């Protein structure tokens, strides 16, 4: 079984494994007891992994300090593999690929055509579940890269349910013949491969050019599903046109819109606490204001003592009797207001989300940048045969009615 096919328990020498450093940083390794996995925090010796169960966290002391760094060693799956690919690659992401696989009813009965191979991310998902995958790639460098990868991952050589072919399917169709640039191993008497495809995925700039070639390679006696993956709406239009022209029916275009959410917390800040905080500040301030006011009025009063008109102000003095002015030039002597004490929300300090000194409410936040569009998916179906074998039907009828009951129940 391939490294993707088998459920392995323990990490073993020679395994293809994925090292999880962080969500955005997942790296494939081939386990080799003499090797090290290097990160900027230090080197993780492969021998620390060998013999441990998959999923194990591995710790090392970080370089030049007594701190620790951790990685997880995972067994590859098509989805993890997709996550590990650099983002600039052309990737069919899991929300799209999983929907396409479901809608084309992919399973052990499926013979799938995929064109083009691209980054190979979708190929891995197909390979996991279908009887056979025929992948076509028109770009030579990408073909070689993907073929090498499929071999390394055991899809071609071990699992043996993937065939990759270098081909411009728009020009040359899907038939794989002896002599083609393909991973297929022809037997001596075999001239071409009988694809019998019943599920087709076209990720091509001009799928309408490839459509007419399909009839010769699809399964004749069943309903065959087709999905074209196109970023622009004009491509969809041309695709639908070609589908109709080539006898495909039940055409429907859909978009998959998926989102991821971050689990976050927002501090619970009650109005009551906010009010109490302001009261606290106010009372500190009032002290200062009262002091300034006394100073000011004393100053006025002093001048008024030279005046006759003192009555009017006297009544205001009632509340300001207790303290003495500290200075005549009050405006230059603003009293320092004591730091307030009631600080329910930790203002002024950096509070970490989830700090247990505060109360929090669980909230979800959509990822900062969402993949708002991948491509339009245009589905269609076709059945080539439209007759029945009357002889077979009669035989079946006799057989079925002769049995007391069917195999079910």
């Amino acid at each position, binding site marked *: 079984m391939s490294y993707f096919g088998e*459920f392995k*328990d323990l990490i073993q020498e020679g395994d293809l494994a994925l090292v*999880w*450093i962080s*969500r955005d940083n997942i790296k494939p390794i081939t386990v080799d007891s003499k090797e090290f996995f290097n990160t900027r*925090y230090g080197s993780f010796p492969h021998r620390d992994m060998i013999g441990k169960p998959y999923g194990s*966290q591995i*710790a090392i002391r970080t370089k030049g300090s007594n*701190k*620790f760094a*951790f990685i997880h060693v995972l*067994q590859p*799956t098509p*989805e993890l593999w997709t996550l590990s690919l650099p983002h600039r690659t052309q990737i069919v992401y899991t929300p799209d*690929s*999983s*929907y396409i*696989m*479901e*809608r084309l*009813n*992919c*399973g*052990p009965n499926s013979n799938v055509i995929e064109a083009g191979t691209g980054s190979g991310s979708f190929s891995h*998902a197909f390979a996991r579940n279908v009887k056979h995958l025929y992948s076509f790639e028109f770009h030579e460098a990408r073909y070689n890269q993907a073929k090498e990868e499929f071999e390394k991952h055991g899809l071609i050589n071990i699992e043996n349910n993937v065939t990759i072919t270098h081909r411009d399917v728009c020009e040359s169709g899907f038939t794989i013949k002896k002599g083609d640039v393909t991973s297929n191993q022809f037997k001596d008497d075999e001239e071409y491969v009988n694809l019998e495809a019943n599920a087709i995925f076209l990720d091509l700039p001009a799928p309408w050019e490839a459509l007419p070639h399909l009839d010769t390679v699809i399964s004749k*006696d069943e*309903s065959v599903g087709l999905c074209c993956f196109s970023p622009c*709406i004009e491509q*969809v*239009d041309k695709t*639908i046109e070609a589908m109709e022209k080539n006898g*495909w*029916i039940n*055409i*429907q*275009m859909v*978009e*998959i819109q*998926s*989102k*991821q*959410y*971050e*689990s*976050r*917390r927002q501090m619970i800040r009650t109005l009551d606490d906010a009010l109490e905080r302001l009261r606290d500040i106010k009372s500190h301030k009032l002290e200062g204001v009262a002091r300034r006011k006394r100073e000011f009025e004393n100053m006025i009063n002093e001048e008024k003592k030279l005046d006759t008109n003192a009555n009017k102000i006297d009544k205001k003095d009632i509340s300001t009797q207790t303290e003495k002015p500290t200075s005549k030039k009050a405006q230059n002597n603003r009293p320092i207001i004591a730091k307030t004490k009631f600080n329910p929300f930790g203002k002024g300090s950096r509070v*970490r989300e*989830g700090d247990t000194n505060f109360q929090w409410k669980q909230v*979800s936040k959509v990822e900062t940048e969402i993949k708002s569009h991948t491509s339009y998916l245009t589905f269609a179906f076709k*059945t080539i045969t*439209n*007759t029945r*074998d*009357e002889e*077979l*039907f009669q035989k*079946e*009828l006799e057989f*079925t*009615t002769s049995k007391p009951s069917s195999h079910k129940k």
Partner: protein
Amino acid sequence: MDSSKVISFNQHVVLELPSGNLKIAELRPNNSISLGKFGAFYINDIIGYPLGSRFEINYEVKEGEEGFAEDSKEKKKPKHMQKKIPIGKAKLMIETPAINETSDDNEDRSDSIGTIADELEYENSLNNKNLNIKGNPSEIQELSMAEIEEMKKQYANTNSQDIINKIIQSHKEFNLKTKYSQLKYLNRKKSKFSKEFIVHKMTGRLLLNYLIDKGDIQRIMDMSEESIGMILNYGNVKSNGKYLVIDETGGLLVYFMMERMFGHVTENDMENKKFEGEIIVIHENEHVNLDLLKFSNYSEKFIKKHIKSISILDFFEPPTEEEINNGFTKLTREELSKLSNGERNVYQRRIKGYYKQCQIVELTKNDRKYDGLIVASTLQLTQLIPRLGPKIHGSRSIICYSQFKEILLELSHELYSDLNYLAPTLMETRCRPYQSVRGKLHPLMTMRGGGGYLMWSLKVEPAPPIPSIEIEPKEDISETKNEETEAETKKQKI
């Protein structure tokens, strides 16, 4: 005949009616199926054609050959009151790709583009400008409802195109509509009088759509096909896995898993192919509810072999082997032969119980770990998942479905603070269907709102406690999740 490809006897199929509604039927030989107002047909007529074929019911049968079918809707009425549906001959239709069916009826404002409708030969207007907007539709439609009903009653002996032509003739303002409006109008009418139907292969997708049609969406936890697709892929569901599953959808989820793991399994396959995979279904009631599997084409034997069920109580508090053996005495052949029939029945029940108990012991053995945990349950997940987690092997997927995001948010917070779970991820996926008609492309005006949410995480094995030296992991190594960085990890980068 290959029952995975052609319509076969004793198979469950999904019938798509002219109205777009779905009906599940079992194809028993020499029987007939009634589609209610759309007619009835003999099953034998459709056997042997490829699954996915479209048929029309044809009533031009020779005298004396007519039959009648019972209408399931009429069953509650007394026998003599039941309306019988005449049975016609189902004839394969060769598809001519016409206007697409995935349109909706809500955009007259776009009426004057009209790049289709070459097939229409009725007079038409460039836009709907002169259409009476205030009027009651029945004023425009000159045929009264009663008249149409009358036509419907007679329709068994009428060509549906005739009815439609009649209706067009009596629609006062038909010629004032644009070509596109006319086409839409015709499609609408056609869906009421047509006698066409499609025989689809039973698939999870169609079973789901059937349940949605029936309004059973709550029963299946508001799950959408796209969410299920994500469950299958993120759950890494494949033919050789052994999965721990909670399925409160009555078996829908399990059925989807079976399709992915086993495909279509014929009797022949069961003898010749090796099937390894297993689904262990944990349930919170005494008995498991996988009712929907009754619509599947898997044999009871196959289901029994690959789907095992166990209650949460048995799962968490399994009996010991000793208890089981103590609780049951195997009788010898000799003893058995002495039992009366009644006694033998009792004994049979008890022996069945005994094997069930043995299976429980087997499934819950300490060293038995599963290749994935797939949960669609309304039990509180924050308690449930950490209790099931230890049964999952490292590096395997945990995927939980919930109708509500808030439930999974709570769960992801819980798992985030547990070193046994890596990177809990909250996801949503929605499929947005388009009116896929050239020249009139746009998303459908309305669609179902639900579909649920997913939480995906990986089971991992934390590194053993680190010897007694100072631990102070750098903050920027994410996902390290040590106590020291707890506050940091609470701000989850997902």
